[in-house]
């Protein structure tokens, strides 16, 4: 009986790339098991997409399947069967945390050196790998000079140099704008036919119909759905929505707002603004009027100067020309602080206390007596669903929570003008829709919002006005409201 069983296993083993049975895993610093009984198998050549809310253990499961846990990340693992591929490689999410070396060739050579390839063969292999993914850059180019999208492509090239059977992709596009994300997925699709591919990804619209299976995990680290993508969409959209996971039909149930057509009083005027970056002009604005109660998007390709424009509005970087706010010339950041509030792209770098509660409270303690300040702080925490994390250090929060908190810090007093640099970036469906609802409420309460966003779905649905920076000029775009 036992022998027979073994034979069957061997047969299965030949066809499967990954076979994990009854996996148990616990992080040393926590009480609870992250996984108590996970069973998963992936056939050779299969493409699998793992989705789920943050904290559900998708990345951890990916790391077990690729053997990083427990080999590299020393976390105790128990399983009845743990067959994992020998030749696998990874692409990770952070373009700035996966390169060891300063230049393209040295980075690629690093991988070949690890495999003890003869140096004379390296040049050819590197050129081929770059050609395969369509990254046309000189070998001696510094990696710093690559855009985020190109860095991730380089990561794919690096992964291919490891000659894997299995490719593990851990949110490879989560730090990229829409165009780069699309481009990266096209690249990956062009090379993946012979590979087994396991993907953890939020941004699924480009790959949903390309994968063979979609696996949904819940907050308790359990696999609750494992079906082909079409079936999931036709039968289980409610489950995806319940866990706040993006899917191709997400935007069909996005919040819809009734827009008031009344623009408010003139708020901001910009005249002859010129911004340069190391001596090169990047943006010139002849004249721009912004009224209150407007919801503006600021669009344009990466590096066009969108973030610089917001910084210049805050007088954080030097510029020529005049900014007139409520009929007064703005000379220093101080002149508009309190009325105008920017939320930058990296929430981590905007926190100034070591407790979530304090981040909000310090905005209140100045303006209200202690009890009222506490009350208001708790209200805001509740509003942003952060009340259970109030005691944590802001840096311990998840991406979505961090971003919520960074916006929450703006609401000490309701600002007249809120500048947001990609406020929905990297958020799941639930958090994104929450943010959009919040912005709508703010606009209705009289705040003007200028938000940088690359998300076409937001650009075409919500703003009352769209601005685009293109070739150093700022242009008005039509608002095609699809609502």
């Amino acid at each position, binding site marked *: 009986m036992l022998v027979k069983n073994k034979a069957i296993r061997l047969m299965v083993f030949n066809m499967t790339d990954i076979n994990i049975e009854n996996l148990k895993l616990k992080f040393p610093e926590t009480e609870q098991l992250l996984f108590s009984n996970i069973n998963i198998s992936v056939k050779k050549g299969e493409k699998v997409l793992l989705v789920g809310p943050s904290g559900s253990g998708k990345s951890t499961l990916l790391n077990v399947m*690729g053997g*990083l846990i427990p*080999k*590299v*990340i020393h976390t105790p693992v128990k399983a009845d069967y743990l067959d994992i591929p020998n030749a696998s*490689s*990874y692409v*990770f999410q*952070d373009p*700035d*945390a*996966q*390169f*060891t*070396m*300063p*230049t393209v*060739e*040295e980075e690629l*050579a*690093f*991988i*070949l*050196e*690890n*495999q*003890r*390839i*003869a*140096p004379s063969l*390296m040049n050819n292999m590197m050129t081929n790998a770059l050609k395969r993914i369509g990254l046309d850059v000189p070998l001696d180019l*510094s*990696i*710093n000079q690559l855009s985020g999208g190109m860095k991730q492509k380089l990561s794919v090239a690096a992964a291919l140099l*490891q000659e894997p059977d299995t490719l593990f992709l851990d949110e490879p596009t989560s730090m990229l704008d829409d165009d780069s994300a699309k481009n990266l997925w096209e690249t990956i699709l062009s090379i993946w036919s012979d590979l087994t591919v396991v993907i953890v990804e939020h941004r699924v619209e480009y790959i949903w119909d390309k994968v063979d299976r979609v696996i949904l995990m819940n907050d308790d680290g359990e696999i609750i759905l494992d079906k082909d993508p079409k079936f999931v969409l036709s039968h289980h959209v409610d489950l995806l929505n319940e866990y706040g996971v993006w899917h191709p039909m997400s935007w069909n149930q996005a919040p819809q707002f009734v827009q008031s057509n009344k623009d408010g009083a003139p708020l901001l005027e910009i005249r002859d603004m010129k911004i340069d970056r190391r001596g090169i002009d990047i943006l010139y604005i002849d004249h721009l009027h912004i009224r209150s109660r407007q919801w503006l998007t600021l669009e344009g390709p990466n590096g066009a100067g969108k973030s610089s424009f917001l*910084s210049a509005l*805050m007088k*954080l970087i030097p510029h020529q020309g005049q900014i007139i706010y409520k009929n007064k010339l703005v000379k220093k*950041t*101080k002149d508009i*602080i*309190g009325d105008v*509030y*920017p939320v*930058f792209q*990296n929430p*981590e*770098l*905007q*926190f*100034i*206390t*070591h407790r979530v509660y*304090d981040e909000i409270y*310090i*905005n209140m*303690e*100045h303006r209200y007596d202690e009890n009222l300040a506490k009350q208001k702080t708790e209200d805001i925490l509740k509003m942003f669903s952060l009340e259970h994390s109030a005691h944590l250090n802001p*840096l311990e929060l998840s991406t979505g929570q961090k971003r919520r908190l960074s916006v929450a*810090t703006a609401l000490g007093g309701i600002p007249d003008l809120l500048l947001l640099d990609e406020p929905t970036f990297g958020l799941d469906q639930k958090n994104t829709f929450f943010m959009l609802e919040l912005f709508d409420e703010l606009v209705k309460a009289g705040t003007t919002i200028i938000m940088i966003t690359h998300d076409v779905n937001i650009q075409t649905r919500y703003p009352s006005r769209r601005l685009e920076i293109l070739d150093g000029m700022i242009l008005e775009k039509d608002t095609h409201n699809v609502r």
Partner: protein
Amino acid sequence: MFDSIKNKDTFVHNVNPVTKIIAAAALFVIVVFTHNPNTLLYFVCIMAILLFTLSGIQWRYLCILLGVILVSGLLSSTYMILYGKGDTTLFKLGIIHVTEESFIRGIHITMRGVILSLFGALVIFTLKITDVFYALMIHFKIKSKYAYSFMAAINMIPLIFSEYVQLRRARKVRAPLIDKKRISGFKGLRMTIVTLMSQSIRRAYRLGIAMESKGFSDNQRTYYRQTTFSFNDIFFVITILIALLISSYLGINYPIFNTSDAR
């Protein structure tokens, strides 16, 4: 590292880092045992010329650097100049007593520092950081674990700096809205350090995993860059020797100070 201010590559860029390091050590000994201030003065001039011609760096940056080196060199020798012993008084005011001997001794010390600074600058400007670590691994058998960790760490420095700039901006925006005690003094400093450190530690952790997932280990490996010794190394050593010979010839035959021994 200095690509943004570099004009061109010279043969010194192709000199093995090991040669440069050994040359620097040798030069240190030679300069310390040179007591003729005339020789040193000529050597300073020749070193400056070498820096300007061989570093490939834009001259205006070199001029700024030269200024900084000279000023800091002079400052460091003021103690010796102002309070030194000697017979020929040049200037006296209270406890300040400048004598010809102390003056020359001070200048002599300055010149030693300046020579080594100029040579150091030439070496650093022409050094590729990866070459240094490759050379250390290949010739000095430094463990690859340490070499690559250092290289990865050096890559992160610009990121830390840009995060610091962002942090400063965010602070500037939030500061007027809150009580000063929250961000001033030690509290503010601690917050800055904790934030930057936690970002870096997280990034380093991720990078470590990425490195190992790419098959990095402390085992045997091949080396893409072959740091061998070439004619460039010989040229480099000869250039320095000639510079030394010329300056000692000029120092003996065309003295500028009226002493040949600063001691």
